[in-house]
């Protein structure tokens, strides 16, 4: 493998990995906060992608101008899902874990079914846009522009999350709720409000990821399932609940995937990812940065 190819594969894997990290961090945020795995996370991504597609069709504006709207809408969607569905599931007296699994899993199926019946199973894609289908070349290495913008957005987002957690009262309240949700009332924090904002935040993160993915990938009702497996592997690899773990693991997954595609075959690009995942599950079940 030439140095040029090596760099090419490494960089494109890195960029894709950052987008995976963005998607996985939303899952990790919600899990860390309240020990609930959102099995509808992939369908949240699908909703975000359809929203972006719909907005582009309706307004004729470029996706780069529309992503804030998609992200804010997904925040509201996530908060509404918590308040309308998940909060009630948490009140289950027995077998709470199972109730949560089937609630979010069922929600995912409903969302996918709704998309299939209302929007048809057709594959759609956003046509020409400012960055769609374009790439930049740097010293002979070609980087697709959507992924490059996605990578930058991902770094910016993780920086903002880091600043928020370390510098703001809301961040501390979030950390405290992650530690012991039952105890935050002792200092006057409303756990339910933090959970609502957490679900909103988790959905907003996948909304941002979906906004970017919609630029270079097809939009269809089951698109979430194509990505959710990678998101779960990323979260488990990074350690369930660890947001920074999701970043590191996302990058690892992206790079391993890119090298598998080149060294084995593009059809087998996930093989390397699952091999790494299996190795981590066997050698370090709590994930690279997990504490559970």
């Amino acid at each position: 493998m030439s140095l040029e190819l090596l760099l090419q594969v490494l960089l494109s894997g890195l960029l894709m990995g950052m987008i995976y990290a963005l998607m996985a961090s939303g899952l990790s945020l919600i899990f860390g906060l309240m020990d609930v795995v959102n099995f509808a996370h992939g369908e949240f991504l699908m909703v975000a992608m359809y929203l972006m597609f719909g907005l582009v069709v309706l307004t004729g504006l470029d996706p780069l101008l529309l992503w804030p709207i998609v992200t804010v809408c997904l925040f509201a969607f996530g908060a509404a899902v918590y308040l309308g569905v998940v909060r009630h599931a948490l009140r289950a007296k027995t077998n709470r874990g199972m109730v949560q699994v089937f609630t979010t899993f069922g929600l995912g199926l409903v969302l996918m079914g709704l998309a299939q019946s209302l929007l048809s199973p057709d594959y759609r894609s956003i046509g020409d846009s400012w960055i769609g289908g374009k790439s930049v070349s740097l010293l002979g290495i070609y980087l697709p522009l959507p992924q490059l913008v996605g990578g930058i957005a991902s770094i910016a987002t993780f920086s903002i999350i880091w600043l928020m957690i370390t510098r703001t009262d809301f961040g501390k309240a979030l950390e405290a709720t992650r530690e012991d949700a039952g105890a935050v009332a002792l200092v006057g924090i409303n756990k339910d409000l933090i959970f609502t904002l957490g679900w909103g935040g988790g959905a907003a993160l996948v909304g941002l990821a979906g906004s970017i993915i919609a630029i270079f990938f097809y939009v269809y009702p089951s698109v979430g399932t194509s990505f959710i497996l990678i998101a779960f592997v990323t979260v488990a690899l990074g350690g369930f609940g660890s947001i920074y773990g999701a970043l590191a693991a996302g990058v690892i997954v992206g790079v391993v995937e890119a090298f598998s595609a080149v060294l084995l075959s593009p059809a087998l690009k996930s093989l390397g990812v699952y091999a790494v995942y299996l190795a981590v599950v066997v050698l370090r079940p709590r994930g690279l940065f997990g504490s559970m």
Partner: protein
Amino acid sequence: MLEVAGLTTTYEGLVAISDVSLKVGKGEIVTVAGANGAGKSTLLKTIAGMEQRQSGSIHFEGERIDGVQPHLITARGIAFVPENRRLFPRLSVRDNLRLGSFLFRKRPDRDAPLDGVFSLFPVLKERLGQLAGTLSGGEQQMLAMGRALMTRPKLLMLDEPSQGIMPKLVTEMFAAIKAIRQTGVTILLVEQRLVESLEIADSAVVLQTGRIVLRGSAQEVRDHPDIRSAYLGA
């Protein structure tokens, strides 16, 4: 200040406290005594809104607070230090204290109670950067009380503050509780150590299997023959 009337709380189908009535006047220290499982912790948890009452009422400063969400009870001025302290173990001592003043986060003087906390428990000042989970039992109790004081309570409820701390620190702990009362904070104290708590308390109630079996001034309770034989070894 606090008025509990006919309070009954069930816990997983079993009656934990039954028909408990209790008054705590402003500036008082009232201690709740009783054996393990007598319902002392349930009483405090119910007042704090963390357990739901079956029947009865709780009034604080004339307003009914049973059924109010626990974070709003804290906001009304009732701070609760539970038996297991419930610190945020992977956050620093500084962050734990700072979270205590979360309700006052928009006020420039949010850290005002900090000086008082440090003069009560000087060791906390040396441990500011340390993770709460790495503190000794006594230091964790101090931090839990410090965090509670940061919420600027009118009523402080302490559940077994002397539990799990070194014997030589117990005296200091009771001195600290007395000092907190000096600053105008009313105290409802649940304690197994009856001798020490009766020394600082104004009045006491004794719980037995969820019911109040004895109440009176600290002096009266101390002199009661049943108490003398059961707790004071006389």
